[in-house]
Structures are given as C-alpha cells and as structure tokens.
C-alpha cells in the first residue's frame, strides 16, 4: 500500500514531465521510466538494501522494500497516466479552448476527467501487481506474509499446506481489490469511454 502510494506520488509528476516539459526534462523522465521498467524489482531491492550501505546509507528492510516497490511502480504508473492523457484526443482540447476555456481549465475539466476514467483499469492491474510484488520483500528479510509462513513451516513441517494458505490469502486480497475497483469503474462508467485492457 505504501509502495503504491509512493509510486503514485512519483508517477504523476513524471508523467506530466514527459508530456508537457521541455526537452531535457522530458528525456530524463523517459529515461527514468525506461530504466526502472527494465531492471528486475529484485535487483532494485538488492541495490537499495545491500548496495546503499557502501555509501553509508543503511535502510531498514521495510523502508528499502517500500522504496523499491514504490520506484518500480512509479515507472509503470507514469506510463499509465501518460497513455491515458495522450489518448484523449487533441480535438477535445481544441473544443474546450473554442468555448473560451484557458489551458489549465481545459485540462482540468475536459482532459483529466476522461483520462482518469481510462486509467482506472490499468491502475487496478498495477495495484494487484504491487500487492503480489510485496512477496519479493521476502528476499530482504522483511517480516511479511511469506516469511511468516516460513517460520511456521520450520515448526510444523507442512510446507504445502502453509504455502497454499499463503497463496489463498494473496488470492483473496487481489480478488477483493480488483472487485472494489471494478465496481468503482462501473459506477463512474460513461458510455463511449473506456477500453478493456489487461496487462501484466
């Protein structure tokens, strides 16, 4: 959750930079996105947790996990928002200007409401991914679901049951979040807006 929030907070400025900023910023934002999307999350986590102490920065595992998951997610989320904003046609913007709106109003009242609706399904998807990625924090020794499971296994010698239980918990969490956001999407649905899209 924290990771997703951090991702969101970073993603919005990044996507704006990519669309509206002058060249050097635009390039930097794209490079940021591209690099983070190209490196496995696990490597990012390792760099943060094991790598940073080289420079005297020692992050607690939980913080490192939140930052790692958040940074990765920000790269994907910025892509979601950029895509959504760009998919609202230029003509909508022109039409808004033609009735006398200034650029900021046109963006806020015409482009944003449409873009946000378009962004809901991919954003839901991203939420599920972040949820599942939290399991990778295991590698950093964060005491969370998977790890808890490992402790119990040592005691019970019933690995399959334990892991299946963990899987079931994740499954319920993802189904629950998909369901909630799916309902939100339906409530906000407007005929003619929205495409079905499921990406990993």
């Amino acid at each position: 959750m924290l990771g997703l929030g951090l991702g969101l907070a970073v993603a919005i400025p990044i996507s704006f930079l990519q669309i509206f900023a002058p060249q050097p910023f635009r390039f930097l934002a794209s490079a940021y996105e591209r690099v983070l999307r190209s490196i496995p999350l696990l490597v990012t986590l390792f760099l943060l947790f094991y790598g940073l102490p080289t420079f005297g920065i020692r992050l607690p595992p939980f913080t490192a996990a939140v930052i790692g998951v958040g940074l990765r997610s920000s790269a994907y989320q910025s892509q979601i928002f950029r895509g959504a904003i760009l998919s609202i046609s230029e003509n909508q913007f022109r039409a808004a200007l033609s009735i006398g709106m200034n650029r900021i109003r046109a963006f806020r009242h015409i482009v944003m409401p449409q873009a946000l609706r378009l962004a809901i399904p991919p954003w839901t998807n991203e939420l599920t991914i972040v949820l599942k990625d939290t399991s990778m924090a295991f590698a950093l020794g964060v005491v969370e679901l998977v790890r808890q499971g490992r402790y119990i296994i040592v005691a019970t010698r019933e690995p399959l049951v334990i892991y299946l239980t963990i899987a079931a918990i994740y499954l319920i969490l993802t189904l629950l979040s998909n369901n909630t956001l799916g309902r939100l999407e339906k409530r906000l649905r407007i005929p003619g807006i929205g495409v079905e899209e499921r990406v990993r």
Partner: protein
Amino acid sequence: MTFWQVIQQSWSPMLDGLQVTMQLTLLSIVFGLALGLFLALGKVYGWKPLRWFCTAFIEIIRGTPLLVQIFIIYFGLPPYGIRLSPLEAAVIAFSINSGAYQAEYLRGAIQSIPSGQMQAALSMGMTPWQGVISIIMPQALRRVIPPWTNEFIYLLKYTSLAYIIGTPELMAQARFVASRNYEYFQTYLFAALIYLSIVLVFSEFFGWVERKFRIPGFEFHK
C-alpha cells in the same frame, strides 16, 4: 575496488548466470505458450466444465505471487515424493505462471476478432473448429504479438526470483560474487546493467520485428 575491477573479476560467473537466465526464459515462454494456447482456447471455446476450469486456473495463477508458486513447487511437493531440481522447479513454475498470462493475452486477441469473421467462415461451409484454426487464430496470433513480447520481457525480469531456490541464474551469481568481494553496490549495479541492456536489446528487437511484419489493419490498438 573500482567498478571496472569488479566487472573484470566477475564477468565470467555473471555471463554463466545470464546463460541460465536466458535458458529459463526461453524454456518457460515456450511451455507457457503451449499452456496459454490450451487455456485460452478452453476458456473461449471449451464446453462448460473445461471453460470453468480454465478460467479458475488463470485467475488463481494471476492472483497469487510468483514467489509463492515457486515455493509451492520446490518446497511444497517433496513431502509427497516429488523432488525437483532448482532448475526444473523454476521452469515449471515460470511456465505455469506465464501460461496463465499468455492465455489472457490470447483470449483478448481472439475476442477482438469481429464475430463476422466466424460467421463468414461458417457460411463458407467450414466447421467451427476449422473456422477457429484457419480464420480466427491466424488473425488473433498477429494481434497477440505486442503483448506477447511484453510478456517475454516480464518473464525475463521475473526469472531473477529463481535465485531464491538456488537456480544459478544471473541474480544468484551476482549474490555469489558479492558475497566474496563485498562490493555489494557495484556488483548489483553490474547485474542491473546486464538486465537493462538485455531488456533494451530485446525490446528494440521486438519493436523492429513488429514494424517489419506489420499488416495494415492488424495494428494492436492499446
């Protein structure tokens, strides 16, 4: 140690790791494709129980973390007499996982083909099965190329998880190297650069293939 020294000292084990990584990726994507085809066709065209099974399978796999799936296969099965090597366990886990995702892409592509195509096929006297094989699938497979190449890249990155069960892929090698030279940051940075360049190479290559084989009207509209 300078970054350059780290590279010089570790490139050989890292390249070994990269080789395992690629092996893992390629094997899993191919098995995953076979599984994905089965699941997608089953979900779209299968009779009720099969359809239900495929849907549940896809949703369960997509709804649980890959890491947990790996654990189930590697640690969960041995008490029942199924002992797998780390590499085998990793390939099986990745194939199943990727199969579920590939099935969803395929299903999307199949359902994006207008229903008129099937009607036209039937009206020519084809059986439904013939219609699927010779009219729907060739179109759907073209449409599925872009999401499929994305899946390849995802899988490539996710294979790094295999280190946890001791598969000697790139990530595991990086850990191994780092535990000896104590240059954690530089070693992982080196690993990151390798992943970055290999992902960039593949995505550029796929982009090139897509442009090269584009058929008018078969652009995949995101």
